[in-house]
């Protein structure tokens, strides 16, 4: 059994590469025998594997073609299944080790928490691997930051097993002393042992180069290279080795064209850096860009042959475009800037969300810069909650966990990239005190039952931690700033962040209920006071998020099919969460195509996709209110640094309704 991971920044084509590779190795070719039975797995909570394959997928593997299955994991469902199988054993441990009764335990186990996708992801892949149905499992991962959390999950599970073991210990001692007949381990003991063993095995498996391969997908642009370097270091520190770098979407050489020539020159520079800094002692594979993203089995199979056996095949030739570009109606436009567009104006909390790689950070940075410039008396914070930060790359200025002024930026603007691990470490003393108090409240008279083991979690960065501190930072920053612009992680995790206040409030309430119930045993002290304060600020935050006059969610997308489909799902979910979604920014539009055939074909494809988006928004707009379309142009090189960002922000166009 071999495990192959495809990782990379959002929007670089991980899903495309992973599915094309899986298709290629499952089929026999003149160059190569079939690798056997293959499963391609998506672990990104915002799945696009089904969109890319053009087949509806589910959390159960589905046959795609001979020797190839595909599956989109659902962390919550997988956890619910695991819980169903282990509920009794887990309930027993918690009842043995704490004052909690079965009602309390049931309530706690039914709460949802962020980070489940990462925690359960590897366990699920392990389950498929053990099933014995597959020879190769190809994993399409979530964007960088969360993949690092996913890969660290075995350690977290190991600590959880340790906490459960500490809780069960007291019971074990009593049982051994009082039981007349020595019995074998109980279900609870078996669960703890199995969890611990599974965590250790997966961790070893990931680090075994014969069984596991990591492939890193990047685009030939400098921003991707910087983020890749950070990720490589993090992976190496964790003992994981990347053995292949895939450089995706290289512009093929063609007749001279002012736009494409400029981009090719940029790519050449980036490629040289990639070879020098990422490519040493690794395979570097170059994938040419097609005119449109490869979707569907046929297009992917052709691309797969390039990835799998390195044949120098060019991207499949697209059939000529049937309709002439002039057949598409041109939408009347008006020039706007981020600070003047009604969708943004007047808001005090603005979230920029969207699929990976669509330009969320660029749009958020341009907006914050121009807002600050336009109103020097307002204090503006630009905050990144994506664990794979790119604010400093986009601003071309250092940014850190301390809110700071941007070099050459307006004096009333501060920038901060949240460092969840650091935030966790800085709260260590408080959190340990709280844990001890919780243990004293519910631990069965044994001081610190499981609390010191739980404190180990603070050495790791447990999944969900980025979302938690993201929300905490927004709450904390509200007192000091007039407006906060949030650059979120890609879709799946941005949604987790926005869902967090509801989930966190449920957790706090569950703890308050327990403290109230056992107040005869333990006076509700400091912890209760803090929980009351947290519950109050969460309640205020919920109200703020749902107040459309103060809070807006701006979705960034591109005029292509996969981002469009994801945007539609994202908007739907945001509206279910009662958030206001007044505008979609369609980024990187080829507004002024170059002179070559490719440029014109790309521009025509973009216009078709834009028309489809417009139609969807209009349809949903009748039910949930209008969502404006803002067009933002493609510029080569991409806007980097304060000056370029402000200039790019001045090039936005608002579509007027017809």
């Amino acid at each position, binding site marked *: 059994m071999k495990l192959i991971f495809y990782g990379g920044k959002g929007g670089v084509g991980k899903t495309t590469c992973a599915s094309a590779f899986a298709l290629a190795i499952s089929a026999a070719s003149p160059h190569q025998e079939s690798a056997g039975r293959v499963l391609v797995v998506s672990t990104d909570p915002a799945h696009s594997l089904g969109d890319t394959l053009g087949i509806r997928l589910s959390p159960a593997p589905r046959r795609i073609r001979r020797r190839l299955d595909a599956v989109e994991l659902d962390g919550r469902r997988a956890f619910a299944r695991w819980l169903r199988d282990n509920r009794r054993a887990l309930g027993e441990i918690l009842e043995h080790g704490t004052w909690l009764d079965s009602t309390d335990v049931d309530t706690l186990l039914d709460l949802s928490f962020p980070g489940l996708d990462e925690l359960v992801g590897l366990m699920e892949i392990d389950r498929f691997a053990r099933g014995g149905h597959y020879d190769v499992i190809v994993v399409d991962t979530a964007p960088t930051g969360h993949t690092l959390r996913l890969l660290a999950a075995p350690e977290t599970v190991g600590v959880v097993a340790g906490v459960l073991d500490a809780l069960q210990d007291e019971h074990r001692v009593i049982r051994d002393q009082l039981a007349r007949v020595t019995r074998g381990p109980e279900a609870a003991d078996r669960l703890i042992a199995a969890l611990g063993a599974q965590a250790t095995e997966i961790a070893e498996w990931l680090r075994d180069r014969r069984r596991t391969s990591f492939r890193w997908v990047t685009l030939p642009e400098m921003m991707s290279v910087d983020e890749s370097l950070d990720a490589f270091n993090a992976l190496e520190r964790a003992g994981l080795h990347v053995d292949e770098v895939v450089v995706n979407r290289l512009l093929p050489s063609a007749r001279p064209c002012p736009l494409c020539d400029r981009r090719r020159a940029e790519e050449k520079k980036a490629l040289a850096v990639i070879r020098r800094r990422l490519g040493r002692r690794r395979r570097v594979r170059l994938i040419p860009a097609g005119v449109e993203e490869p979707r569907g089995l046929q297009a992917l199979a052709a691309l797969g042959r390039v990835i799998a056996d390195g044949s120098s095949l060019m991207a499949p030739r697209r059939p000529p475009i049937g309709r002439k570009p002039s057949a598409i109606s041109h939408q009347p436009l008006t020039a706007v800037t981020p600070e003047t567009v009604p969708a943004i104006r007047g808001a005090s909390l603005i979230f920029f969300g969207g699929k990976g790689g669509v330009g969320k950070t660029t749009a958020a940075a341009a907006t914050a810069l121009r807002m600050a410039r336009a109103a020097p008396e307002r204090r503006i914070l630009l905050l990144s909650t994506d664990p794979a930060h790119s604010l400093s790359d986009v601003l071309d200025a250092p940014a850190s966990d301390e809110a700071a002024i941007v070099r050459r930026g307006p004096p009333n603007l501060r920038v901060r990239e949240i460092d969840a691990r650091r935030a966790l470490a800085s709260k260590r003393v408080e959190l340990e005190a709280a844990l001890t108090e919780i243990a004293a409240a519910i631990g069965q008279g044994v001081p610190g039952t499981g609390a010191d083991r739980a404190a180990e979690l603070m050495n790791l960065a447990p999944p969900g931690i980025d979302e938690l501190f993201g929300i905490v930072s927004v709450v904390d920053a509200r007192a000091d700033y007039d407006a906060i612009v949030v650059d979120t992680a890609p879709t799946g995790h941005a949604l987790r962040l926005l869902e967090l206040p509801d989930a966190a409030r449920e957790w706090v*309430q569950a703890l*308050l209920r327990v*403290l*109230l119930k056992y107040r005869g045993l333990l006076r509700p002290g400091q912890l*209760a006071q803090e929980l*009351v304060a947290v519950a109050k600020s969460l309640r205020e935050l919920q109200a703020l998020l749902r107040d459309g006059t103060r809070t807006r969610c701006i979705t960034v997308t591109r005029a292509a099919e996969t981002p469009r489909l994801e945007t539609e799902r994202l908007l739907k979910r945001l509206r279910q969460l009662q958030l206001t979604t007044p505008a979609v920014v369609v980024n990187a539009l080829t507004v002024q195509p170059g002179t070559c055939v490719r440029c014109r074909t790309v521009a025509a494809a973009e216009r078709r996709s834009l028309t489809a988006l417009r139609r969807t928004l209009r349809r949903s707009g009748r039910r949930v209110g209008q969502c404006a379309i803002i067009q933002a142009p493609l510029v080569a090189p991409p806007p980097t640094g304060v000056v370029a960002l402000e200039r790019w922000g001045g090039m936005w166009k608002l579509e007027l309704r017809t």
Partner: protein
Amino acid sequence: MFILDSLLIGSLRFVLDKVVQAAEAEMQDDSALRDQLLEAQMRLELGEITDEEFAETERDILAAIREIKRPQQGAISMSPTDKITGVDIDTFES
């Protein structure tokens, strides 16, 4: 019977003493009231009581806390002579 009586009376007195002690402690110490206030806040966050009910409870508890504070502060503000006079009067009367 004597033993039973003394046991009964003894334990009754013990219980009564404890009650008096607790009542006195509660009158002089506002920590029990603060706990009650915290409990009301917890119930408010859990949605077990409404904003109005909480406001009412809070008003009562705060009034009670002020009540405890008042005589204590009064004692501190009195001059030594005042205090002696008071004790003297008490002594005369008893």
